[in-house]
């Protein structure tokens, strides 16, 4: 196709860079993708930069005043803004500390030099600026990223599933872990990963965040039956979804 290439910028905030890596790890797909998009801003991979873009992909959560400034600037420059990965979409693992006193944590880690490192409560990008679409997951599934890109390039703003991981787990034919007493979060976690973890025998730990109307009361009962303490259940829920739980309460 000779259609004009879509100009794309990638921007990273506080995160582990796994999302960056997820992109460059699509070795088989990259050359084809680059026929349709032109990457105009990608600090990790290139030295030139441009702010003239059609869509900005944001990785990482917002954790400092400087982040807030920068994300506002990007929002102004980008007609479409997409969050990529758990950190930018739902707050991610950084939001573990939600509910704990920030100053205390800073003290714990930096001691009396904590004033050197200003920090805000961890926020997903949507808490600061409008987000047009999101790619969930920690890390995002390359297949999901490819699906997103093709749909996006075909002119649609792709939506993530609103149903839980179990649907995909059953499409794979897996026997349910939760039924076997293994505390799997798949029942309340947004699908789209293809039941990555349960298909490998590992419980889902909820990296894609909660589905709307997640039945958390039932989850607590099931997890208690798996032998988890209340503290462990809270921990599990707060691993990735701290921010989302806060929204619920």
């Amino acid at each position: 196709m000779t259609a004009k290439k879509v100009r794309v910028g990638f921007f990273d905030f506080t995160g582990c860079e796994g999302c960056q890596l997820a992109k460059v790890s699509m070795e088989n797909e990259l050359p084809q993708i680059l026929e349709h998009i032109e990457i105009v801003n990608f600090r990790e991979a290139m030295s030139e930069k441009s702010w003239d873009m059609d869509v900005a992909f944001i990785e990482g959560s917002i954790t400092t005043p400087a982040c807030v400034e920068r994300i506002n600037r990007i929002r102004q420059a980008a007609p479409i803004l997409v969050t990529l990965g758990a950190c930018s979409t739902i707050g991610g693992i950084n939001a573990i500390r939600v509910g704990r006193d920030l100053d205390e944590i800073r003290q714990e880690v930096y001691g009396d030099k904590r004033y050197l490192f200003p920090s805000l409560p961890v926020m997903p990008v949507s808490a600061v600026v409008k987000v047009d679409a999101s790619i969930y997951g920690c890390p995002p599934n390359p297949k999901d990223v490819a699906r997103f890109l093709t749909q996006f390039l075909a002119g649609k703003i792709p939506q993530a599933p609103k149903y839980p991981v179990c649907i995909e787990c059953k499409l794979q034919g897996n026997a349910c872990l939760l039924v076997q007493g293994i505390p799997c979060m798949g029942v309340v976690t947004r699908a789209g990963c293809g039941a990555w973890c349960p298909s490998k025998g590992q419980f889902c730990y909820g990296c894609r965040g909660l589905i709307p109307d997640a039945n958390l009361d039932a989850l607590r009962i099931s997890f208690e039956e798996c032998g988890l303490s209340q503290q462990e259940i809270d921990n599990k829920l707060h691993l990735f979804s701290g921010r989302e739980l806060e929204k619920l309460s």
Partner: protein
Amino acid sequence: MVVSIHSGYVPQQAKIVRTEQMTAAEKLFELQIPDGPLGHEPGQFVEVSILGVGEAPISVSSGPNRGPNFELIVRKAGSVTEAMHQLGAGAVMGIRGPYGHGFPMERLKGSDLLFIGGGIGLVPLRSAIHYALDHRSDYGRVVILYGTKNPNEILFRREIEEWKQRDDVEFFMTVDRGSPDWKGNVGVITTLIPPLDLNITNTTAIVCGPPIMYKFVIMALRSKRLEHDQIYVSLERHMKCGLGKCGHCQINHLYVCQDGPVFLYSDIQDVKEAL
């Protein structure tokens, strides 16, 4: 031996002959298929596909006797409808169908027809209105009630003017909320029903609108003493296949795509999920 499957899902190419932006969100597409006309009954729908994006069920809005082409009116509501809006004359979309049970225009011969359309609900009704007007002598009175949220959302403005001009059509309209230059009725569509002077024994009401509208319209019609079997409704549901298999459009034991979308009210009054 290798056999093809799912040929029922294969769309035919429909060429866009003309488009018209009707409101900010609704656009009309006049379509042409190679072996036209489509051969639809009023009230039936087609599955429109934009390859690579998806499919959406859309009612055929024009009457079957209006030449080889047919018309769809599409509201921008999501991916597929959005993609359709980006298409102009000369472009191609996929069409399969027509599907479903339409309005039983044959059976209604001789009857007075009361059309009640709320918002985009007028779109499927229009095919039946066309039919009635194209076979005008077969029917008694033709009364059309039309309501929209506000004046900006009024569809088919030119056609409405024509209906108003005709002395064999009675047309009444209202908007939920007016605007400074709106001179007509303000109020929900049910307010148009009580003043009507109907020949109760010989009237059939044909209703289509947003989910919330049905209950109130039917109540109003009942207080006019219309019987359950004098009311037809056309229902919308999530639909994926149009072939009575995917299950999305099911209301209790019925499949809207196959058993409907047009239902005789008496057939579904006890179907709990219907209205």
